[in-house]
């Protein structure tokens, strides 16, 4: 009975966190889905989003949720820049080339970030209150983060299915050569896709910073989670990533009810291997 109660108290937290994880993973899986590039700079960009919130709140006195707008814009532009500088020339090369190119970007950001910001933990001095839901205490920051993540997911869905650039992205993801024959400017669409993926990573980092401490290395953990979520939801399937994120968040919420908290990563990554073995296209189907 006590464990059931514990499970119920931990579930809402897990769900809210899962939405944010899903948002982060969506960025990774969008890039993979459109251009078959594993973006290893995903983690540091999440960390840059965290620092974006930190500086906008602590230096500019901005509300962190208003700060999401400039962070999203900078994230989009940074992604386009990374694509143009590091990815575009290796987009048709074997996967290892793009993997190494994004790994190089990862190392550049981490190196410069460590020099400029050290690896000491940072906290965003912001609270959105808390309230009781049954016997659990829900934090306002997590609730808002969950809602914002859902909004971004909805926005991405509408963008991909209801706008011309979104349809171009889906067309390029489906068959780049055919899309080019139809007059779709594939290079610009690839750059836009990379920018969108980076924007989602930066926004998820900005949201995470409102409730967890961070440093320039913190993105690595969320990048790994994004891989697990990507595989759970189906690589290349952005909406599947949201559900993958929810599953991971719920697992993180309920595992400590039955086992020591240190078992969480063990079970997460065991699940990763099992899904790869049993259903490599993910629970919700990978990109066709």
């Amino acid at each position, binding site marked *: 009975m006590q464990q059931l109660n514990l499970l119920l108290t931990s579930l809402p937290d897990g769900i809210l*966190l899962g939405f944010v994880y899903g948002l982060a993973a969506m960025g990774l899986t969008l890039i993979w889905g459109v251009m078959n590039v594993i973006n290893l700079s995903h983690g540091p960009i999440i960390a840059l989003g965290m620092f974006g919130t930190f500086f906008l709140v602590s230096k500019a006195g901005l509300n962190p949720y208003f700060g999401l707008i400039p962070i999203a814009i900078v994230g989009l532009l940074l992604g386009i820049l990374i694509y143009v500088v590091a990815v575009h020339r290796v987009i048709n090369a074997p996967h290892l080339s793009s993997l190494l190119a994004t790994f190089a970007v990862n190392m550049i950001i981490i190196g*410069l970030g460590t*020099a*400029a910001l*050290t690896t000491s*933990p940072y906290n965003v001095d912001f609270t959105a209150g*808390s309230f009781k839901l049954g016997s659990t205490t829900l934090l306002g920051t997590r609730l808002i983060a969950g809602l914002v993540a859902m909004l971004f997911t909805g926005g991405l869905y509408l963008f991909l299915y209801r706008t011309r650039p979104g349809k171009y992205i889906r067309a390029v993801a489906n068959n780049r050569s055919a899309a080019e024959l139809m007059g779709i400017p594939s290079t610009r669409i690839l750059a836009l896709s990379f920018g969108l993926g980076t924007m989602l990573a930066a926004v998820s980092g900005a949201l995470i910073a409102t409730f967890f401490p961070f440093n320039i290395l*913190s993105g690595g953990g969320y990048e790994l989670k994004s891989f697990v979520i990507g595989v759970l939801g189906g690589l290349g399937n952005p909406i599947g990533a949201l559900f993958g994120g929810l599953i991971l968040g719920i697992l993180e919420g309920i595992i*400590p009810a039955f086992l*020591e908290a240190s078992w969480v990563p063990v079970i997460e990554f065991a699940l990763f291997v099992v899904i790869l073995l049993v259903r490599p296209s993910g629970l919700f189907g990978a990109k066709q």
Partner: protein
Amino acid sequence: MKRSLFNVFTVLVLFGMILSACAPAAEPTEAPAPAEPQATEAPSEEGPAATEAPVMEEKTITIGFTSSLTGAQEVSSKRQVAGFNLWMNQVNDAGGIKLSDGTVVKFAAHTYDDESSKERVQELYTRLITEDNADYLISPYSSGLAAAASIIAEQNGKIMITAGAAEDDAYKTGNTSLFQLYTPGSQYLLSTVDMLKTLDPEAKVAIVHENDKFSTSVMEGLKPYLESQGFEVVLEEGYATETNDFGPVINKLVESGATVLLGGGHYPDGSTFARQLYERKAGLKFVSLLVAPADSKFPELGDAALGISTSSQWELAATHTAEEAAALGKTWYGPTGEEFASAYEAASGDKPTYHVAGGYMTGLVLQKAIEDADSVDPEKVKAALEAMDIFTFYGGIKFDTSADAHGLQVGHQMVVAQWQKDDAGALVRKVIWPADVANAEPLYPIPAP
């Protein structure tokens, strides 16, 4: 093609230059010259060799160590190094240590960034010994890293003075080259339990700690002691070092009915844990966390820091004195706590924490051993360390010399400190136990958020 490559290169260089320009100046790892030089004279009965010798030979001793400029141990490691640098600058500026044969011993540090990684530690300590010819070693910060370094030190027969390495096991594996300055981990929280016994003998205790060598060794010593004192342990839980989300653990804690939490690990997880306990209104009467609350960054948590306690190796408010040494019949050595603190504040602009004091003491203990040995010969210095039984501002220093636990610290006691508010409402760390050195009453229970 060539033009495009050039453009790419130009953008990368410009990007790098812009970010580099945004970087603050490098952290000062070398403390500036101290305010007051320390007494470093060799024993006077040997004669004034330093002034009478026609030619004074100067000998520079290289002290090797790694520090965590990056990674999980960065905060405390930098403080430890700052303390060591303060000592080294003081002794060098005072003219070094003068031996009876006319030799003047000065010190130089050789150091690398270990990135808080055990693999890096082993590689770098090997390099320090074999390529950089370090004469003596100081441990890296944290028990895990120090244990990794101790293997290399022992293999090469190099004396290593450890600070920030409280875990007991490294001294119980037959090592003979390690000398520990911290109170061993197994005794870390015992004084906190003694205090709880007077405050609330009916308290229900939860033990929630980082799963690392140090924290685990603390908890292994804690649980039997709690039970021997009649406390009920209602929850015992470990968490991974990189844990950010303590929500599920806090839910478990609340469900267990615990009124007191003893646990934590290091700075990053401890500060996060404290913040989330506050945000989630965990409603505990008393919280003691390892390491994090002892750091001067901790009040950045604001009201979440209020009432959080820690076991501390040293606090300025309860610094040890020459009178205390005399009462105990011990030999007093080194500066007073106030002299040490003012020199550190002058050098860094910050108040010293116990990690700074620990770093300073690594040098001071080595200095005392060299003076006692009247030599820099490692065997003589080692014998001096084994015979050492002194009292300093940091407390007693005496090493176990038995084969079972060689080098384990047996002379040093800890205090319990708690973050409270002063009359102006500012957070200050007060010493609350032992009662005879306390400068404040324990805040019990902690005010509800």
